[in-house]
């Protein structure tokens, strides 16, 4: 038997090790790889929340990119005035992060309240309408800057570290640390009582209610937790790219996040990390190959963008049909084959959400 305290300690230890490894990795990667690492960390913030939402409470959100966008806008809209007022360094960054949390949390709360009332397809429909309306909203609300979006202040390397790390590396550090702060609470939620409640609500709402759990509160809570984490991811992207625009957070991006959590393995934080890496690296790999083989310009143009979507779509279908546990289960199965033998009660998930 593991107690709550032991479990918490295990999660914190794992988080610390992963964070240190990622920060260490920034020293061996070149500038572009560090940029990619930062983007992966940002996407991981979003996928970790989405995997809990879809995997544990069974709420399908097609608008998760909007929550990232909310975080990005929240960051840009608080950090930019702070920069104009002459504020700099950690204070400005903290203010921006607070802005990201407030805005993403507010949007998440609204969606969560809706999600608590709506059944699967209805929630999917509402989030779909929201993600479609995002460009229109940014055009109509003057402060959001329309299609061009808004800029975020440049976060330079602090004076003390200037000789040691480059800008890309510094941004990767920021991204990794923010991801650690965003995802660790989610991992704790997942392994603790809250996770159990989420599973109970998903499994049988009536039974959960009889056991004294409020499904509405659990569902809303899951949405808000996922939104806060996604908002931090959006803030990181705003720091790395120094801008936020609606074009970056369209429906296709929302679907990519969904691909990441399903392929990684629904409900698994490790799977969300693997998925985040996949959705950043696979399009880049495919583009590199496509431009590398020297195809006719016309074909190359048609493959650009489409080829990656094709691969992701096929993966989404294939994983759901033949491999419902996702990558995390396939990999985890190997690693934990020993523990598996010691805990014979553990069974292989047969459906997407059973774990």
């Amino acid at each position, binding site marked *: 038997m593991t107690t709550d305290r032991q479990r918490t300690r295990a999660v914190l230890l794992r988080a610390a090790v992963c964070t240190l490894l990622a920060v260490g990795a920034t020293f061996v990667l070149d500038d572009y790889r560090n940029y990619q690492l930062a983007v992966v960390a940002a996407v991981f913030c979003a996928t970790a929340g989405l995997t809990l939402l*879809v995997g544990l409470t*069974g709420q*399908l959100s*097609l608008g998760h990119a909007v929550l990232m966008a909310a975080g990005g806008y929240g960051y840009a809209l608080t950090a930019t005035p702070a920069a104009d007022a002459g504020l700099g360094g950690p204070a400005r960054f903290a203010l921006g992060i607070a802005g990201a949390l407030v805005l993403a949390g507010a949007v998440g709360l609204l969606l969560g309240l*809706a999600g608590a*009332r*709506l*059944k*699967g*397809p*209805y929630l*999917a*429909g*509402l989030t*779909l*309408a*929201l993600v*479609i*309306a995002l*460009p*229109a*909203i940014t*055009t*109509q609300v003057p402060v959001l800057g329309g299609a061009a979006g808004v800029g975020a202040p440049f976060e330079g390397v602090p004076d003390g570290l200037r000789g040691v790390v480059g800008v890309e590396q510094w941004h990767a550090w920021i991204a990794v640390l923010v991801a650690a702060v965003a995802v660790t609470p989610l991992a704790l939620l997942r392994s603790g009582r809250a996770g159990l409640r989420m599973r109970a609500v998903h499994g049988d*709402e*009536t039974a959960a*209610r*009889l056991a004294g759990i409020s499904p509405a509160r659990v569902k809303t809570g899951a949405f808000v937790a996922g939104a806060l984490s996604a908002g931090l991811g959006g803030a990181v992207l705003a720091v790395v790219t120094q801008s936020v625009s609606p074009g970056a957070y369209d429906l296709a991006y929302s*679907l990519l996040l*969904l*691909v990441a959590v*399903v392929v990684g393995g629904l409900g698994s934080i490790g799977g969300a990390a693997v998925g985040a890496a996949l959705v950043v690296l696979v399009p880049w790999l495919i583009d590199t190959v496509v431009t590398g083989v020297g195809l006719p310009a*016309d074909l190359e*143009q*048609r*493959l650009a*963008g*489409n*080829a990656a*979507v*094709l691969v*992701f*779509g*096929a*993966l*989404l*279908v294939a994983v*759901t*049909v033949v491999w*419902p546990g996702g990558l995390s289960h396939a990999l985890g199965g190997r690693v934990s084959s020993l523990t598996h033998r010691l805990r014979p009660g553990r069974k292989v998930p*047969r*459906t*997407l*959400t059973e774990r």
Partner: protein
Amino acid sequence: MDRLAFLLATGIARGLVVALFALSLVIIWRAARIVNFAQAAMAVVAVFVGLAVTNLTGSFWLGLVVATATGAAVGYAVERWLIRLVPATTPLPGMIVAIGLVMVLQSAIGIAFGPRHRPVQAPLSEQPFVVGGVPVLSPYDLFVLLVALGVVVALAVLFNATGLGLQMRASAMAPEVSRLLGVRVPRMVTLGWMLSAAVAALAVMLLVPTELGLNAHSGDVLFVHAFTVAVLGGLDSPVGALVGGVVVGVLVSLVTGFLGAGFAPIAVLVLLTGVLLVRPGGIFAAKEARTA
């Protein structure tokens, strides 16, 4: 005032296409309890085939028939060779597979045909009739209106007045009991998919002449509006789809005409949020069983 009448008329014509597509979503929900996110992409595949026939033979009507038939064939293929493999214990895997299918179909069409919109000529004039100095519907709009109404009536008769319709409804509602009573449930589900995909293909084929033309994403906006409509009306209700389709069509037309196209998605979102806040299961939804 002229403007209002014109916008209302085009809104109703456009809304009936949306209603037709929403109806296809209702059919599939009734037959298989699934929201088919891939409906638009499947319909676009069928319309590509239909337009190839139109271009070969020069007849829009033949293309229309072929597109509808191809839609049914695509529905058959998707149900038999994909959806049947998906565990149906919860609605989630089905929705996710459908989303994967959208990505595959749209990117495959994009790779095969490129991003260009292929212009499609309407078979009837698109110049509006002028009634008392006010431009209203064009002959093509009128034709679309008649086809949409015809299909709605035919489907209502099929579902409510024939044995086949009863079997299809029974299979969706209580598959086990229906099987015991001798209904061939898998066949009914396949039929539902074919019917639904055929109606969707018909809707997209009717839509493309009035839009930019055909490419991989031609059905996207229609799908979003139709999905909104189906959700508004309650996924179970054909009447809801019809009423909701016209309401959303008119709303989008009026908002676009008076405020600008940029406001249309916001108006749809506001309408959807408002309705779902009051009636989480849609306006025409049947009352749900109480839980605890």
